[in-house]
């Protein structure tokens, strides 16, 4: 009886820990979000960039984009909610828009095109994967130093 209870407790503990780990996988997934204020084309239609866009996340201004600029922010979790303060033309009053969207789990870096987003196009139109450009420095082989006392050389 005693043993059975112990076993039960252990299984329960393991299940809880695994569950915590699973939760961490979901709530802790980090993404890098890039915002583009660039003129884009979709289905043969042109979407003009705005004069100025400010991006506010958690009451904090994370980026301020002029025309043709890109800004970035880190995101933890799968839901992006930001407030965009958009100025259409020079001198015009800014109007703000709250947007919230799910981010695909498997992608590290995501580019969001603001003009397309504001035009209400579907997600696959304004979202694209960010592909880092490999620099030549990256290609160089790195010497691995195993121990700091230079025992590598010999005895």
């Amino acid at each position, binding site marked *: 009886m005693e043993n059975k209870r112990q076993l039960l407790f252990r299984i329960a503990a393991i299940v809880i820990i695994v569950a915590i780990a699973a939760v961490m996988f979901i709530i802790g997934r980090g993404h890098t979000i890039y915002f583009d204020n660039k003129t884009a084309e979709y289905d043969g239609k042109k979407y003009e960039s705005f004069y100025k866009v400010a991006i506010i996340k958690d009451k904090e201004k994370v980026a301020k984009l002029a025309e043709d600029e890109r800004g970035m922010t880190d995101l933890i979790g799968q839901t992006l909610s930001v407030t965009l303060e958009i100025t259409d033309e020079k001198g015009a009053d800014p109007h703000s828009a709250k947007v919230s969207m799910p981010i695909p789990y498997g992608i590290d870096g995501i580019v969001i095109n603001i003009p397309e987003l504001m035009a209400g196009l579907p997600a696959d139109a304004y979202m694209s994967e960010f592909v880092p450009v490999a620099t030549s420095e990256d290609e160089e082989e790195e010497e691995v130093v*195993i*121990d*700091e*006392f*230079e*025992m590598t050389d*010999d*005895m």
Partner: protein
Amino acid sequence: MTMKERITASFKEFGLPRLIITGFLVLLLIIAPFVGSDLPTQISNIINRFSWNGILVLAMVPMVHSGCGLNFGLPLGIISGLLGATLSIELGFTGGLSFLMAIIIATPFALVFGALYGWLLKKIKGGEMMIATYVGFSSVSLMCMMWLVLPYHSPNMVWGLAGKGLRTTISLEGYFDQALAGIAQINIGNISIPTGTLLFFALLAFAIWAFLHTRTGTAMTAVGSNPKFAKAAGINVDWIRMLSVIMSTWLAAIGILVYEQGFGFIQLYMAPFYMALPAVSAILIGGASVNKASIMNVIVGTILFQGIVTMTPTVMNNIIHMDMSEVIRIIASMGMILFALTRKTEASR
């Protein structure tokens, strides 16, 4: 005892790790020609490295014999040797003479350090190996400061810009580079045999072997195998142990000088830090245990260890295109030491 029992007994005595390591080396030797690595060069490398390292491994023998365990305090002796080498150069000796002088200068240091070390080990019987390790570490890090502070001036050794403080590596060209190896060196094709160094090793090994058969030598073995009995037989146990520590320290000093003449450089600062570990694992691979070691163990162990060190990079690289030699060496040598430390028969001592 039947034949089968005898075989299994000797098999057990040999030990699984040792068997794996030997088998591994044999396998490497067999594979080597097929993967396009040049066997004569490899063998020549092994012989050369054996000649460099043999005496450092030999330095384990006296302390193991007297029951002080594996000499993890090897760096202390190495420091005496380094002092001898640097002072010999500082005093202006060159060529082969500088090697002789290095030995002569290193000797008093080794005797004093060895005596202090022996006195310390007398106070801590039973905990020698751990304390030896840390005595080695402390002395190496103390000497790191000393190399900077001591008033060395020879322009070949100090930092050019500051004009003081010894460099981390000092070239021995013009001093005792190949001082022993150059004597009667034999060159056949790709193979070059450092006859002088091998003879020097043979001389010292023979001296130790002969010493172990003198009265003092047998007393040393007695102290190691059964201290109570030795004490009852009227042997001065403390003195014998002290003697063995001094001998080990002196051999380490000579060992590093021989190593340097082959390698061509003096390495200072942190370089001696982990030098005890390969020497310890080499003698264990050769069949020694924590309280038993022979000259044969030294020779076999050094050849096996150096064989693995030289063969793995080239052969492994050719087979799987990965240089795993470093990792293999760490796992093999440390596994060997662990195995020796955990043998039940020896742990009871």
